[in-house]
């Protein structure tokens, strides 16, 4: 029990950046600046985290079940982003509300991506890139990119919300070089 509390406290203590709310253009640009400029002293690591952020944040903006209208009147997804800082790596996580129906194919994609070697993953990206623009499943190439950029597997979990929806969390580890 005590170790579980210690573990939770450590997770809170290690938070470098966290945000919950609407994922509209303005907010994304503020978060992007934080990541690009101040996260780590290593620009290469910042760029990796930034690239991952852009792809996953756009997925929330487009696909989150929870939606709000921003000041400009645009309908945008609501979600959560957390970056945790450990001694030799960062953990980047995003979370958003979804339905079981919508998230099963996404989790299958994560499993599929995690099962591939780097070579296979690059081949898969080439294939996805040649799919017509605007096709459903556009988030697919984003997840492939995240796995390639991080060079680590995609970890996901699903929590049932009291209102019957599900909260989907995807996390990836980014090693400090």
């Amino acid at each position, binding site marked *: 029990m005590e170790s579980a509390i210690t573990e939770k406290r450590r997770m809170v203590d290690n938070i470098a950046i966290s945000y919950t709310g609407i994922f509209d*253009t*303005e907010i*994304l*640009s503020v978060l992007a600046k934080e990541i690009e400029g101040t996260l780590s002293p290593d620009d*290469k690591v910042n*760029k*990796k985290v*930034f*690239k991952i952020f*852009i*792809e996953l944040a*756009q997925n929330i903006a487009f696909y989150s079940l929870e939606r709000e209208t921003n000041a400009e009147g645009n309908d945008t997804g609501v979600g959560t982003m957390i970056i945790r800082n450990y001694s030799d790596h960062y953990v980047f996580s995003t979370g958003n509300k979804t339905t079981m129906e919508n998230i099963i194919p996404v989790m299958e994609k994560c499993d599929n991506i995690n099962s591939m070697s780097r070579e296979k993953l*690059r081949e898969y*990206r*080439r294939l996805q*890139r*040649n799919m017509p*623009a*605007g096709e459903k499943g*556009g988030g697919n*190439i*984003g997840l492939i*990119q995240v796995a*390639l*950029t991080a*060079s680590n597997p995609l970890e996901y979990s699903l929590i049932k919300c009291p209102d019957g929806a599900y909260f989907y969390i995807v996390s990836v580890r980014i090693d400090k070089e």
Partner: protein
Amino acid sequence: MEDIHIEGVHEAYFTPTVNFEVATGNCEIAGESYLEETSKFYSKLLDWIRKYTTTIKGPLNFDFKLSYFNTSSSKCLVDILDLLKKYQNDGGKVTVNWYYDDSEEELEEVEDFILETGLEINKIPME
């Protein structure tokens, strides 16, 4: 037919710098590409290349100097490379230089563009 000159912008979205010159066939896409309407932005560039390769039919020297592009932009970059490959197959003179940020991942990305399009691309590490 007119040149294209677009000044790069780094705000909420990132617009790349674009310089396409009719007289010389020298074309450059530089900076960062992360756009609100990616297809719309690139369709203008694709139209320019189509027009140049069917009416002017001169040489094309392409310099890609992108320090960042998101996955939506990468789809459009492949579309450009496909057009250049097609022009080359039809007898057009095409040179492509790709300046990449010096990392293994970005070098892989250029290599994948080569595999994907069959186009010869000179890989040059960015300063």
